[in-house]
């Protein structure tokens, strides 16, 4: 996995490339927490280039989302392919996250 972080207005956009799994999820967590430390509050994770996300990757998303919310911010997700959407549905995490079809839609609604 590798990821890139960019700003779009006051939203921090993270793009995840490859699998988000137990061996690499900490990297992502660390970087998002740093941004949070620096005062960022609006986060969007774009999964258009993501293969799959394992349970520990999901766990990281859940814990980040909680932390961000506690600080008055918000974490949104975008561009889940069919398989990833199934994954969020299976685990009912689709009820916990705001999931947008495209990056633009997700950005609009912050």
């Amino acid at each position, binding site marked *: 996995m590798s990821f890139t972080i960019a700003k779009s207005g006051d939203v921090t956009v993270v793009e995840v490339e490859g699998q988000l*799994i*137990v*061996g690499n999820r900490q990297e992502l967590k660390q970087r998002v927490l740093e941004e949070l430390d620096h005062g960022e509050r609006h986060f969007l994770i774009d999964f258009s280039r993501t293969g*799959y996300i394992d*349970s520990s990757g*999901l766990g990281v998303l859940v814990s980040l989302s909680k932390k961000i919310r506690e600080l008055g911010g918000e974490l949104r997700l975008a561009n889940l392919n069919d398989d990833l959407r199934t994954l969020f549905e*299976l685990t*009912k995490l689709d009820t*916990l996250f705001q999931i947008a079809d495209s990056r633009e839609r997700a950005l609009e609604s912050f």
Partner: protein
Amino acid sequence: MRVALELEVPSEVAQIERVVARVVATCADLQVPERQRQFNVPLALTEALSNAILYGNAERADRHVTVRAGMADHALVLEVADEGPGFDLDACTRDPTAPENLEREDGRGLFLMRRLMDRVERYNAAGNVVRMVLELP
């Protein structure tokens, strides 16, 4: 032709992707349909491997994880064995979709394995071999 692949790796989560890639390549050979090959199998196997490495072997360098992937009677069978004490698969499977669990960070691994594969079972008495079966068309 019956085909089985056996892999043995040290107890490091960094090994997971290589193992998964090799099993997925064998699934292509075995003509496992694309979606199962690209999603169900790698994800279920990743879960089983990380449990074997983290809980079963407690990431101890002297312990290994063995994976067997094979075809039997129109089903793909994956076995993941660790060198730990074993565990009770049923007792450890939680429902992560229950309201009290939904915001937990952990506890989705066994649940996902069971949703992604047709059968997930303890394969030996000790309980340190997990066997996952995916029926094929």
